């Protein structure tokens, strides 16, 4: 017994020695995540948060029809007049084209995903804006990061308010989208369109100040010129033509319009000198089938190539002169291969990989804004000069000579041709207040092409609007069912 007791003593001592745990035993930390404090301790860390925010702009969430900014630009164009959907293919974007996707407020539906996307960007930007002032680093680094975050926030609100409400002019007092300028978990009310635009402009002006003198190291980063470009875009939508003209001019600076050859090089590389802002997408970060080129590059074996070819309307195609290099951005009718009028403008660089860069802003848009704003301000001379500079690089024999309404209409036509498929259609349709008129008949919308279902809509039709997500109405205490769009 005594012997046993001794043995037991050893055993117990051994057991206790092994098992008595240090306090650290229960302290565990993640390896693929990091705390906000760590991120915002330095400007270097804050830069990581900023880069993540840019990455979100080309990340695919939820399904193959959502891949950041470019997916919603496709929505904007497919709800417009100039892209014809050849066939259903795998079904992606079919219901956007038919105007039924935006009529649903359900989870994972189009409206809800757009809402989610822009508000997630806004939250990430808000956290950078709220914390950057205390990050260790040089003032220049802090200004650069904060300026970009402000511009991202403004850019996001601009798309939100335009997807969820009619255009600015004439609707200033209509419900806007909830504004958040600091991180929070408490929901805000819809507010008004005017309030949204006031915030957008304030952010952009502050960003312009902060970013002045800062170098754009990669094309995905927002520079002062890109900020000015966004201001021009916003001002055009607001019909503030003087601002639009001045900022468009400032934004493009000395950038010359690209040549016809470059125009037909695929729109998939940030090395294009006309690109002011674009996302570089490498092989690793490409989202394959859930990518812009899967849906828009009809020559690749993505979803577009699997049946849902995107085509230009015959109506617009026929308005492009034969001498215009931009006409070759579409498959000429009567030739073999792809269906007639198929878009060839957007092509990823390599057939065997999915890397292709995403265009977010280029000088051509600035030329068109300046031309349109000048024309609307009565400065036809400048309008024509700017327009001619832009178009002549693709069509050397271009020699439009009209004035007044004819000139304005020519600018708007050139805008549709030049910026074809670059995501401006829905905002332009709302802004121009002429409703939706989709051309039909051979080569246009409808049979034998995919049934567009919706062919005409009056100006300011509620059908243009996204629905407020049901989940927002359910969770935001500032919302009631009455806040839903009509």
């Amino acid at each position, binding site marked *: 017994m005594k012997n046993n007791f001794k043995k037991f003593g050893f055993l117990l001592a051994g057991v206790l020695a092994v098992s008595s745990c240090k306090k650290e035993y229960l302290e565990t930390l993640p390896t*693929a995540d990091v705390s906000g404090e760590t991120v915002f301790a330095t400007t270097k860390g804050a830069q990581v*948060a900023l880069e993540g925010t840019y*990455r979100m702009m080309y990340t695919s969430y939820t399904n193959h029809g959502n891949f950041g900014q470019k997916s919603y630009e496709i929505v904007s164009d497919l709800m417009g007049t100039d892209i014809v959907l050849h066939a259903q293919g795998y079904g992606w974007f079919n219901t956007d084209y038919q105007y039924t996707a935006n009529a649903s407020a359900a989870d994972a539906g189009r409206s809800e995903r757009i809402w989610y996307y822009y508000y997630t960007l806004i939250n990430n930007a*808000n956290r950078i804006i709220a914390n950057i002032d205390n990050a260790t680093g040089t003032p220049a680094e802090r200004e650069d990061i904060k300026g970009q975050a402000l511009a991202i926030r403004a850019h996001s609100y601009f798309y939100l308010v335009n997807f969820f409400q009619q255009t600015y002019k004439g609707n200033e007092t209509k419900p806007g989208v909830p504004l958040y300028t600091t991180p929070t978990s408490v929901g805000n009310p819809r507010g008004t369109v005017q309030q949204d635009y006031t915030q957008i402009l304030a952010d952009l002006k502050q960003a312009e100040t902060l970013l002045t003198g800062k170098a754009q190291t990669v094309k995905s980063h927002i520079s002062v010129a890109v900020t000015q470009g966004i201001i021009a875009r916003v001002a055009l939508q607001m019909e503030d033509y003087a601002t639009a003209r001045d900022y468009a001019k400032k934004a493009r600076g000395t950038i010359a319009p690209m040549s016809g050859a470059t125009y037909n090089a695929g729109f998939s590389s940030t090395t294009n000198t006309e690109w002011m802002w674009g*996302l570089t997408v490498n092989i690793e970060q490409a989202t394959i089938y859930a990518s812009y080129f899967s849906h828009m590059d009809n020559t690749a074996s993505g979803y577009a190539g699997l049946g849902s070819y995107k085509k230009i309307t015959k109506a617009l195609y026929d308005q492009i002169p034969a001498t215009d290099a931009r006409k070759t951005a579409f498959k000429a009718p009567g030739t073999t291969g792809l269906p007639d009028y198929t878009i060839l403008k957007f092509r990823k660089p390599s057939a065997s990989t999915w890397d292709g860069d995403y265009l977010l802003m280029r000088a051509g848009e600035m030329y068109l804004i300046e031309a349109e704003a000048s024309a609307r301000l009565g400065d036809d001379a400048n309008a024509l000069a700017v327009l001619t500079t832009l178009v002549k690089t693709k069509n050397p024999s271009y020699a439009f000579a009209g004035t007044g309404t004819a000139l304005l209409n020519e600018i708007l036509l050139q805008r549709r041709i030049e910026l074809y498929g670059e995501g401006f259609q829905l905002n332009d349709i709302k802004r121009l207040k002429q409703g939706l008129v989709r051309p039909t008949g051979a080569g246009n919308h409808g049979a034998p092409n995919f049934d567009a279902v919706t062919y005409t809509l009056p100006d300011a039709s509620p059908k243009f609007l996204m629905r407020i997500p049901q989940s927002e109405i359910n969770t935001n205490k500032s919302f009631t069912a009455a806040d839903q769009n009509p």
Partner: protein
Amino acid sequence: MKKLLQSLFLLMLFAVSAIAQERTVTGTVKSSEDGTPLPGVTVKIKGARTGAITNASGVFSIQVSSGAVLVFSSVGYEGTEASVGNKTNVNVTLRTDAQSLDEVTVQVPYGTVKKTSFTGSESTVNATTLRRQQVTSVTRALEGLVPGIVVTNGGGQPGSGASILIRGVGSVNASSAPLYVLDGAVYNGSIASLSMDDIESVTVLKDAAAAALYGSRGANGVIMLKSKQGRKGTPQVNANLRTGWSTRGIPEYDRLGSKDYYEMMWEATRNRLQLASGQTRAVAGQNASNVLTGANGLVYNAYNVPGNTLVDPTTGKLNPNAQLLWEDNWSDVLFQTGKRQDFNLNISGASDKTDYYVSMGYLKEEGTAKFTDYERYNIRLNLNSQVRNWLKAGVSMDGALTDQANNVATGTATTNPFYYSRMMGPIYPVYQRNLTTGAYIVDPATGQNALDYGKANQMGLRPYAPNSNLLGTLPLDDRSTKPFNINANTYLEATFLKDFKLRSTLASTYYDAYATTFQNSLFGDADNVAGRSTKQMNRQFTYTFNQVLTWNKSFGDHNLTVLAGHENYFFRQNVLSATRTGFPFPGTSELAPAATPEASTSYQYDHRIEAYFSRVDYNFQNKYFVSGSFRTDGGSRFADGHKWGQFYSASAAWRLSQENFLKSATWINELKLKASYGEQGNEDLGTNYYPTLSLYQLGNNNVNAPGALINSLANPDLVWEKSKNANIGVDFAMFNNRLSGTVEVYNRVSDNLLFPVPLPLSTGISTITQNIGTLYNRGIDVSLGYSPVRTSNFEWRVDLNLTHFKNKITKLPQEELISGTKKLMVGKSIYDFWIKEYAGVDPANGDALYYQDKLDAAGKPTGERITINNINNASFYYKGTSLPNITGGLTNTFTYKEFDLSFLFTGQQGGKFYDGNYAGLMHVGSYGTAWSTDILNRWTTPGQVTDVPRVQNALATQSGVSTRFLYNASFVNLKNASIGYRMPKRWATTLGIQGARIFGTVDNAKLWTFDGPKGMDPQRSITGVSDYTYPIYRTFTLGLNVNL
């Protein structure tokens, strides 16, 4: 063994010399259950003091005088008597005495207790019952055998398990799954890696008294798995050989054939052109005929007449001259009758101080879908040894190498053969055909019939899933998981100071799954990048290390057991994966030859718990019992100051049958009242190991610049979710143990629910984890066993169990929470359907109608409803819960001499099921997608009364989730039927073996449902929604068990 033989020999010697005038009777005592000889059975002469004991071969020999009656008795068996008469050989069989409660022990946390003195709620299923079912994972065997559980099958992918809920749904966001414990240690390895042949028993612990000592994680109940151990007696050598066939257990939905398909699609097109495009009916009809097989129609024309004459533009009927050129059945080429083979060899035995059990097994289960299977090699060694009179040591080790091939049957992906073959229109062939003659087209490269991928350069661009053919790609692709699972469980147990015992256990599990996702380079999704392969290593290492001190003391009528212990739980998961594309040659999925890197990542998760615990059990005269336990756990998921949670239980039992006032009631064999209350914890948030921290998710890199996005909000105040569990029950056995059972009522309140509180999406983060909300599960569990007939040759046994529970939310973070098809609200269950209500079809125009509330000025429903034809504007309503009202199981077992026969029925009454699969087949006219035959009932003519709306392509506003596809989920399933025959002893002796049994079984023999379409599987998920996963399968098995 040696000692036993010696004493027997001495006994016999003594008997022979002392009572020489009497004659010798010999005989063998065997188990009625499996015919194995029973050693150690006491054989007494009635009315005398003399007796004998059977030897290791079950043989006894005893001196008797004529007319003597022998009385046989053994622990765990019913006693029996046999008169000797003039016989010199008396053979008897003893029946297992399931009702001799006194001897039955129950597995409880950190030990075992006698069932009679157990104050908690448990159900045990032993190997005899388990082995009737031929299943791969033990989780699939419990349904219908244990009261108080709800089992959902989760589909039939080979090697997959079922999910089990004990006593309702205990949590909203944290796991509601029970804790698994293998041989006394918390187990988070692979359940399917454990061979059914090695499992001795499964004990389900249901209340606080039973499970509270696993306080930290016992909130959802505990399932204790016990592996087999060696027993004294002749060493056993058992070989089990089973072979079987599997077919679909749930039939496929009935779908339209080619003729109906063209006619219906014409009608959908005509209706679109007429009603949406505004053409006249005649023009629309003509245009519908014109475009039917065009590029924006069905593309394929499976008949021998021109596409525009295929359907009559006026009548909508198929051209009578049209002859079918092809109609391939995708199911025939993608599915098969799967073979199932299951072999196991085990050897066990024990000497005085050491016992052992060794087994090895091989199982191969082919799926009902081609190219899917599951293969497993497993071994086990259980060894216990009394190395000193005060020290015992043991080890239990098992390992399994498994290979789950082609884990493809999930979701709507083109790689899912179930979804693909179901949704593919009937007119699309597997093999390419000549468009005029319908003749097969031969691939010049292979000389075989060429497959049709639905590409433009083949027969046309198929509107359904172009550029795919699963018969072509599945054999070339590889989507496999190869888990390696090893458990090593060792202990040392020291006895000292007479009543003390110290046991230290180290249990470890190493799980390493190597997964491949390879899309081949030749055809399908990755042909454009010359193949894509992802390799993933998922390594999980767990150990549980505990030290338990027990003091066991009896003072006269007072019996006391005190236990105290300490435990560490350590879990680490490492995941590493990489993807490359660009394979120069087919035939390998390895990354080395692939030219282009796509993505790679690795990360680690850590999870730890430390606990101190104690339990005190006391009883007086084995009549009055009280028990109490306390446990405190520190968990790494929680922040400082909230890491430690306290859990406890208190319980009592009263064995009325031991009272003098019931002693005279001899018809009562056992009667016990019991009650318990306690609190347990739950912190299982899955892979959310850091719920209290506000985290930025790394890896969101922008080209080469590292990037991060905000991913979660901080909540340092998070504490353990608690389950407050009350149980009152009665155990009884009566009429000579012929009727026995348990009735229990419980109230299980889950408090401080770890809740993903939804935030407005516009704040940029959709949820935050908080302790908000309370719900309860209240219910009653009944289990009854009855033997209507019990003679020496024939026995009929009926076992019934029934469960009813009510799940109700009593507190929520906000008034209502909507998620998918459900809405949480105080007073409702957590799975109450919240969906739009279908109001049938407008007889005037065939529109689908839905109800909409009329609102008053304040936006509140007035109670009045109108019907509308736009589902987007329809109101939502509560439409019942997916939770069943009653679930249960009924087993009938018949034993006649060497034959045995049993049937297990399981069933559910009540509960709702939303059949989205069927909804997908009732579309309004999506080109290329198959249609249910029920679409033939669609509205066609004004005034027609039907419940299927008209078909019309692209009519998006009239279909969606609604009560139209919500069905009653009640069902009855003949889950298992088995018949067996045991070889008579004399044949076995002739063959030189101990015994043998042959048997045949059918698992999932037949499912009866009472609502919904053919093809619906009401047991698919607890939430009552369908998915596109693998249907369960029916297995026919023939088996042979030989005891060598």
